């Protein structure tokens, strides 16, 4: 699971509806790896407005990635250095193993072989 994908996931346990807690999921015991991806600035620039920036920054920090600006950056299309960082963080940083914990209900979602497991039993949905 690349970090861009983590930015798209929230807890979906029934009744866990507090959006300040069910997103982002807290990554724990992560085994990270760097994978190579084709750099594409146009994609990043278009994707940027859709990112949950605060969630991305807090998640990255939690994984000891400290080079993202706290404040939502402006004019990123002109900021080559930032595009480079975003590319590395979003598309090349992969969580191979680990787990994601909901800060609301405590539900644990495992990440195995780079695949997040968001499956819930019928009674949990």
């Amino acid at each position, binding site marked *: 699971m690349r970090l*861009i994908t983590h930015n*798209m*996931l929230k807890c979906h346990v029934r009744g866990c509806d507090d959006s300040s807690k069910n997103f982002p999921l807290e990554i724990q015991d992560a085994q990270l790896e760097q994978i190579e*991806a084709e750099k*594409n600035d146009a994609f990043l620039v278009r*994707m940027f407005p859709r990112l949950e920036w605060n969630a991305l920054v807090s998640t990255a920090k939690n994984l000891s990635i400290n080079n993202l600006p706290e404040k939502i950056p402006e004019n990123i299309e002109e900021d080559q250095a930032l595009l480079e960082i975003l590319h590395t963080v979003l598309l090349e940083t992969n969580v191979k193993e680990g787990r994601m914990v909901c800060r609301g209900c405590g539900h644990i979602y495992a990440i195995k072989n780079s*695949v997040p497991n*968001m*499956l819930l039993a019928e009674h949990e949905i």
Partner: protein
Amino acid sequence: MNTPYTSHLRQDEFKSVYDPSEDTFLLLDALENDAKYIQNLKPLTCLEIGTGSGIVTTFLAKILDTQQTIYVATDINPMATKSLLLTVKQNFDTVPIVEPILTNLVGGLSCKFDLIVFNPPYVQSESEEIGTKLFAATSGGIKGREVMDKLFPQLDTIMSDTGVFYLVAIQVNKPKEIIEVMEGYGFIGEILLSRRCGIELLYILKFIRNKQLLQ
């Protein structure tokens, strides 16, 4: 366009993964017919629900032929997520960004998708068969509609305003009724393609949002 290779499916470990069949190929044909529309849409985020072999996501990536899209694909079967990555890998030199997620339909997804595609389990069956090991890829319960009917009310929250949704269905699912149901959720639908295959009449439905309902 060539059909993507999925030769790994012959291996025993993938026997739980749905083999590309007539319905898959009809969906690929429909997507290819609609290629201009899809290319003009320039989708940033694509989602395939119940990806199975991964052939449909791979085909979409071929149609779009850019590195400007992230492809998210869900399935409840871990072997499907594995197959997806193998299918993508063997059909591209430069592998696009494809992210598999194990989940029920779209459970846990919090972002908006520009293109969504779903070849659901649509075969009429006992409700109890839904999601079981042997029948998860095919059994759709009453009228074959139970799984897709669960998805329809959730689409509004995961589809972007300009998004498009492609769905496979058969006659017994009542495609026209599906379009009516979707109208109730704020979507406009049409039959994009249909084909007779043995005793089955297969359909590909295409939905966009009813723009008049958007603020």
